């Protein structure tokens, strides 16, 4: 009678794939990801064609500094600022700004008495207060001019000046005890990226699929189809058919979405942009991918069985949100602890929480990706996780068995235990 498991599974998959909501959601997400996948290219294209911001200045004000600015921007390959001279005072500058001839203007204060080594205060005025790019560019330029001025006054040689402006070099490297060579910075970056992506994917999958499973079971219960189904097929098979069916659909969706993203990222027009950002998909550690898949599966099934159990004890879809809240909180806590762990992978909190089965899929993977957990830590965490999945799966099946026949108000834990005894499961 293993046929019935496949029947439930097939039915679940078919109906999911046919539902309009699912198709629309997948298409929208895929389109979004195609856009995201081409973002590096698009930014490059759009950013490259960006015109320099026109910054006006009053002719004759601080000519030395203005000349310095002009020289500074003239040396840049893609100047972000173009300086425009405007005759007259600040009022004319304002008019020019209003007309749109310039995007903003620079004004310098001119105190009557000039102390030694004084560098005038500059004010950049523009229509929008948020002109971060231009103002920071101007700040850098003015800083440079000021430095040059002081250096010149101090009488340093060109050689000394050059040495001063050479940036210090600091390379970070992670020490690995299992591999012979440590991970390079690039590999490390990719590991952080992959961990981040994996945590988000797991979180989203668990939330979306878990809710789906719970909703579907409750809907079956509230529409009373359940009464016929439980008399045709054992609840255990029905529950697993549903979980596996939803899993296949979730996988399919994931493959489509990740596929859309990766194909676009790998397409030739994005290659240069990706290189510039230092992203190299081929530098992903394959063992990390294996761990990612493993922990993803574990996390998925752990939470899916929990959602199924909760779905089975609720009689009405309206009550479901409240009932799944504890599980939702659990995933949220796991997610946020993991977000914290991205920057502190060896924090004591992470080291403790990695053994909690509900957090392990997030945290153990994070530690494997970003840190160097000892082998026994991995084994212990995975072991606890695995045992928990079996235990929770078993318990959920029992709850499911009695839950599907309990109608009325949401039963308390005591009532469920009582019912389990009464139904002899």
């Amino acid at each position, binding site marked *: *009678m293993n*046929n*019935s498991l496949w*029947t*439930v599974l097939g*039915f679940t998959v*078919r*109906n999911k794939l046919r*539902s309009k909501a699912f198709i629309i959601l997948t298409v929208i997400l895929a389109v979004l990801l195609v856009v995201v996948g081409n973002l590096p290219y698009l930014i490059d294209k759009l950013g490259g064609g960006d015109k320099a911001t026109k910054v006006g200045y009053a002719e004759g004000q601080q000519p030395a500094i203005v000349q310095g600015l002009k020289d500074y921007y003239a040396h840049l390959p893609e100047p972000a600022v173009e300086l425009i001279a405007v005759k007259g005072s600040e009022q004319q500058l304002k008019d020019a700004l209003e007309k749109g001839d310039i995007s903003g203007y620079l004004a310098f204060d001119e105190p009557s008495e000039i102390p030694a080594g004084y560098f005038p205060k500059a004010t950049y005025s523009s229509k929008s207060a948020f002109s971060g790019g231009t103002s920071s560019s101007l700040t850098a330029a003015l800083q440079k001019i000021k430095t040059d001025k002081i250096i010149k006054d101090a009488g340093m040689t060109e050689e000394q000046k050059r040495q001063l402006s050479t940036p210090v070099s600091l390379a970070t490297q992670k020490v690995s005890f299992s591999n012979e060579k440590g991970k390079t910075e690039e590999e490390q970056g990719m590991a952080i990226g992959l961990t981040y992506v994996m945590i988000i994917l797991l979180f989203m999958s668990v939330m979306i699929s878990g809710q789906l499973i719970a909703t579907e079971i409750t809907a*079956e219960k*509230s*529409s*009373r*189809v*359940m*009464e*016929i*189904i*439980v*008399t*045709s*097929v*054992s609840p255990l098979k029905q529950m697993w058919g549903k979980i596996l069916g939803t899993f296949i659909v979730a996988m399919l969706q994931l493959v489509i979405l990740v596929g859309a993203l990766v194909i676009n990222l790998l397409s030739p027009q994005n290659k240069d942009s990706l290189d510039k950002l230092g992203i190299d998909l081929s530098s992903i550690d394959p063992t990390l991918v294996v761990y990612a898949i493993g922990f993803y599966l574990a996390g998925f099934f752990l939470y899916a069985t929990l959602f199924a159990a909760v779905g089975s004890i609720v009689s009405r879809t309206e009550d479901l949100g409240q009932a799944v809240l504890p599980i939702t909180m659990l995933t949220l806590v796991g997610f946020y602890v993991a977000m914290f762990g991205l920057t502190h992978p060896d924090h004591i909190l992470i080291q403790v929480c990695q053994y909690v089965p509900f957090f392990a899929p997030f945290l153990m993977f994070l530690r494997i990706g970003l840190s160097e957990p000892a082998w026994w830590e991995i084994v212990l965490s995975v072991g606890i996780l695995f045992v928990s999945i079996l235990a929770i799966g078993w318990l959920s099946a029992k709850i499911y068995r009695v839950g599907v*026949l309990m109608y009325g108000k949401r039963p308390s834990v005591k009532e469920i235990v*009582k*019912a389990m005894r*009464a*139904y*002899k499961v």
Partner: protein
Amino acid sequence: MKALQVERIIKNFGDKTAVNGLSFEVSQGEIYGLLGANGAGKTTTMRMILGLILPDEGDIRYAGKAYSNEQLSMLGYLPEERGMYPKIKVSDQIIYLAQLRGMSRKDADQNLKRWLDKFQVPEYYNKKVEELSKGNQQKIQFIAAVIHNPRVLILDEAFSGLDPVNVELLKSTVKELRDGGTSIVFSTHRMEHVEELCRNITIMHKSNPVLQGPIKEIKKKFPQERVVVASEGDISGLENVAGVVNVLRHEHGGYELKVDDPQAGQRILQHALAQGPIKRFEVLEPTLNEIFIKTVGENHE
């Protein structure tokens, strides 16, 4: 070999006894009536027959065999609370349910088309359930219960919410199934359906079977205590005839009398004949309705 044997089943939920020592047998091609007030234990009994709950004590046998997964495919169930997947096509869900009962996709499809034709609604094949009226949903639900040709069929309030035409249609279908050899456990509050369909019944009250046996025998146990008499004109003095407890005059002529003595009928007839020609005279059998109310009502403290 009886198709379904229920022997002294007892079921407790905590301290509450839901079913207490119920036994009955259903032969092949028989409709068995399971009656009782709300909360009497009918649904629990049906759930035990369906194997959803195990009885604490006692035994249920299907054609002599104990409950097992193989028995599942020969059971059909129409629950009291109707429900189907609202957003899924009729064909998809009926075939799904039939497959769960162990049918092949092809057979299920054929059977479904046959049943839809029989109910004269072949166009529902591709419709979603939510598009159908309540009565038609019920027809679909009925098909779901019988599509796999079950040997034992459990119908809980099969005809509730249907118009008289559809009640007749389903009733004749149930009779056909019975004639085809299906054993049916039938539960309803409509006593006229029980009188029409069932050979044997059990009336349950507060978890206990209080009245069991063939309807004929049960009726014999209850005294005939109603007499109907009618003539062209009025009949006077009926209330003074010995044994008459109560006289009720019907709107359209005729009198209905309650008596406490079987011999009173003859005295009433003579009394009426003395006053002129009689159009109608009948000593009525107790209806199942009366028996039910009497049995269940008397036990109400």
